[in-house]
């Protein structure tokens, strides 16, 4: 076997060159990763040069280097945010005030591994979910964004695999292999979380996914970035810089679909933009309803013993833990959660410690709303009387107290018959899917865009819109 210089191949700031154990583990895993990438990563376009951003270091100049590369040649690296303080201490929980951990405490090995595996599993999952989308890309610009998201999700997989291999011994190596063996949507070896086994069949779904579901990722990463286990915290801090781009793709993607609809509505003075090959606002609303509710489920049950334990143990904090003004122990403090009692939605005070998931979901919902407001501003600027809204948190849920209940987007509890009669007023119907699917035609001429989406305001890395983002 040819000698591979892994420290050259894998940009890193973890001193891979001198870590024999890690190097050996990565040598075994790398060919399997490449195999996975080629078979389950983006379909068809692996030999094309794509204008990608690569992180080669964590400093200002190194984290975003742009160039045309073939995806299999992308340099997936291992980066931890820089250790900016010498004496970091734990911010919350039972160990608050103690120095952060550089090694995994034996006591928490199991739960930490579970957290890392669950996070790690979502990264390759989304690549698998999106693998056929390039064939229907609305432009080269969008195709490039898709591939950028894909290679970075794969890099996030590397980041989690690094933690598993560097800190969890044989079990960690086994878990790293299993991350490549589970498969999105495969009933025999599904990805761990439900939303990551759903299909991403079209580009509207892709934008929704990157807006709503990747935003869950942001909040999960942000709370892991608070972890007392410092390598995990720093890994997640760096991942967050990339995650921001994914949400940018989602927010601007949805915005451009809205923009296109508004432009046509104004130009032709009609609500029926479908006849011009665009996606109407009510259909966009249904997609919002679906993806928002599915993503909310990723935060878990409203009250959770696991989440409480993770907090007390210092494994997973709250969003922006250090900025929260309280004792960071939460032993006796209450938190208000929405509950379903005797068929009615009610606010209930519960111990804050067990409501950690709900608190994170609250932060998430507020963040989702900010982008929705920007979308509504576009609609308003177009002089159109329509508002995109986030559905009620109890709407269409599969996890937690609302699972099994039928709740309208407005937050009204209804019976099963009412739900069945109105389901497709609220969620995309098979006909809606079919219509959106019918629009999915690949556009590859530089600077041109599909009929259902407006062009972006600016290009990537200050390049023009008609730049050949993918060289076909």
């Amino acid at each position: 076997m040819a000698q591979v210089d892994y420290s050259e191949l894998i940009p890193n700031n973890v001193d891979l060159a001198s870590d024999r154990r890690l190097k050996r583990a990565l040598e075994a895993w790398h060919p399997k990763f490449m195999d996975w990438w080629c078979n389950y990563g983006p379909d068809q376009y692996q030999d094309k040069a794509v204008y990608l951003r690569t992180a080669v270091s964590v400093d200002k100049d190194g984290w975003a280097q742009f160039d045309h590369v073939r995806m299999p040649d992308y340099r997936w690296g291992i980066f931890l945010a820089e250790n900016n303080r010498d004496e970091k201490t734990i911010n919350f929980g039972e160990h608050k005030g103690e120095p952060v951990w550089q090694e995994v405490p034996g006591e928490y090995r199991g739960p930490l591994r579970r957290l890392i595996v669950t996070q790690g599993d979502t990264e390759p999952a989304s690549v698998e979910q999106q693998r056929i989308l390039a064939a229907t890309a609305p432009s080269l610009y969008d195709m490039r964004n898709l591939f950028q998201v894909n290679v970075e999700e794969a890099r996030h997989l590397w980041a989690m695999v690094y933690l598993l291999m560097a800190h969890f011994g044989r079990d960690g190596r086994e878990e790293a292999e299993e991350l490549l063996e589970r498969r999105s949507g495969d009933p025999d070896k599904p990805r761990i979380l439900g939303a990551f086994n759903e299909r991403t069949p079209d580009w509207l779904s892709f934008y929704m996914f990157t807006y709503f579901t990747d935003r869950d990722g942001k909040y999960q990463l942000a709370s892991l970035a608070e972890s007392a286990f410092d390598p995990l915290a720093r890994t997640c801090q760096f991942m967050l810089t990339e995650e921001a781009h994914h949400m940018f793709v989602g927010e601007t993607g949805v915005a451009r679909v809205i923009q296109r609809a508004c432009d046509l509505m104004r130009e032709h003075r009609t609500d029926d933009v479908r006849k011009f090959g665009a996606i109407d606002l009510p259909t966009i609303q249904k997609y919002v309803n679906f993806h928002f509710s599915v993503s909310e489920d990723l935060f878990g049950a409203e009250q959770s013993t696991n989440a409480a334990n993770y907090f007390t143990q210092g494994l997973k904090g709250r969003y922006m833990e250090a900025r929260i003004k309280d004792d960071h122990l939460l032993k006796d403090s209450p938190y208000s959660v929405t509950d379903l009692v005797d068929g009615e939605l009610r606010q209930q005070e519960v111990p804050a410690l067990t409501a950690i998931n709900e608190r994170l979901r609250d932060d998430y919902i507020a963040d989702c709303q900010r982008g929705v407001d920007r979308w509504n501003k576009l609609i308003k600027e177009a002089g159109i009387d329509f508002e995109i809204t986030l559905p009620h948190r109890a709407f269409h849920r599969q996890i937690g107290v609302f699972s099994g209940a039928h709740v309208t987007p407005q937050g009204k509890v209804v019976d099963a018959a009412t739900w069945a009669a109105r389901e497709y007023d609220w969620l995309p119907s098979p006909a809606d899917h079919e219509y959106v699917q019918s629009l999915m035609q690949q556009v590859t001429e530089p600077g041109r865009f599909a009929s259902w989406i407006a062009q972006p305001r600016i290009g990537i890395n200050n390049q023009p819109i008609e730049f050949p983002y993918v060289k076909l």
Partner: protein
Amino acid sequence: MPTAATDTLSADADEARVIDFRTAPDRYHHWDLRIDGRIAWLGLDVDEQATIGEGYELKLNSYDLGVDIELHDAIQRLRFEHPEVGCVVVHSKNERVFCAGANIKMLGRATHAHKVNFCKFTNETRNGIEDASAGSGLGFLCAVKGSCAGGGYELALACDEIILADDGASAVSLPELPLLAVLPGTGGLTRLVDKRHVRRDRADFFCTIEEGIRGKRALDWRLVDSIVPSSAFDAAIAARAGELAAASDRPADATGVALTPLARRIEADALHYDHLDIRLDRATRLATFTLRGPLDELPGSLDEILAQGAAFWPLALMRELDDAILHLRFNEEEIGTWMFKSEGDVARVLAADALLEAHAENWFVREVCLFAQRVLKRIDVSARTLVAAVEPGSCFAGTLLELVLAADQSFMLDGGFEDDERPPADIALSAANFGRLRMVNGLTRLEARSLDDPGAVARLEALRTEPLDAARAEELGLVTFIPDDIDWEDELRILVEARAGFSPDALSGLEANIRFPGPETMESKIFARLSAWQNWIFQRPNAVGEKGALVLYGTGERPQYDKRRV
């Protein structure tokens, strides 16, 4: 189905209500029992809200006593009402979770006494599964998909075979120690190493990790019998269930015997059934059982036995006795002494035993005998002083004589009472005393009382059906004391009063240590270890103290342990 809270369940419940063990499939909240030819599908689908106590919800297919009462009932009915069934598939109707085990919040709130009683009953139910498998050829297949933790895995361990979905997520685990600072309470540890022969070092590892083991390693380590991909899971379960059913000797064409509702009347200080009365004397904390022998002519043929069904005396009496014992265990904790008396005709009881012996090959008769064995085992492992009093007019013969042999001390009146026309009491042995009714340690009660004399049992067997008066009974070692009518009342009174004065805990320990001499079996180990280790741990601050793991579970607070090893 009991939905009422009870004073024994939770320390702070103010209203004393009765836990009722009588239920039927049309009243189940938590199980779905479906019969399909020779296969029974027993699906766990716990109703979170239908709890037997207050202050907890049965999330994630976790169980409390109410769930287990239904399981016990379902298995009992499968044995009697569905002789055509050869295999039971235990599965979950919840897609993500097979079963999360006993509900932790319930355990955290429960009194020590309730926890012990609960564990004992759940153990008896799981032993009953193995008894059905070994004794009546009813195969149990456990279909595990989703997480299968703690008591959930222990339920699986009680089955003959475990098939685990190999989907990267389904796992079996015994997380009690790392998560709750207690032990698996329903035989999990014993069955791991004694039944499944999981290597002890692997068992140690397995029991110290929260997340459990899935897939190939679960198979390699013998934690499950096979692993099957999700897409092939249902088919594999159906196929294996078909094989197990085909291998069963249960009769595909037989008609079952309906277990009709038990008639029971509860009074303040008494409990009445058709063949059994119980009087409670709260001052001396004594329950006096009076069992009645067959009231009518016994059936003359197998067809007549089957036609009688649940009214067949040996079954009817045992069902009543079983219900009474469970009732007293859970609802009358302070009644510390159970005294057994009987009324009836010795010859008729012997005739009933002879019927059972003559038709032992029949499925129904087999079930009746196995049931009697289980009821008597339940009495053996009850934490109550057991006393038998043999008086004129009694019928302690054969099966009923086992109660005398089970007693911690037994008394037989030598002669008659003054002003009592009835002849002095006799007892008698039958075939039932020589192998059909074994204790949890695998011995008959006669063997257990003659460990010093290996020939004794054979000599007794020669005396089968012979009436034995008090003097003979004492000479043969079948009773403890034979006072005459002058001393009778006093002797019994002194015993009962003395027992009432002792520490109930010390008595439970003493009796449990002495009742089961001789060898150990998996079943006896399970009860012994439950009492010795689990019940000790259940009392220790590391589990139930203010900062104990069981108390803090679910709050997110971290337990604090006394670090000294004891």
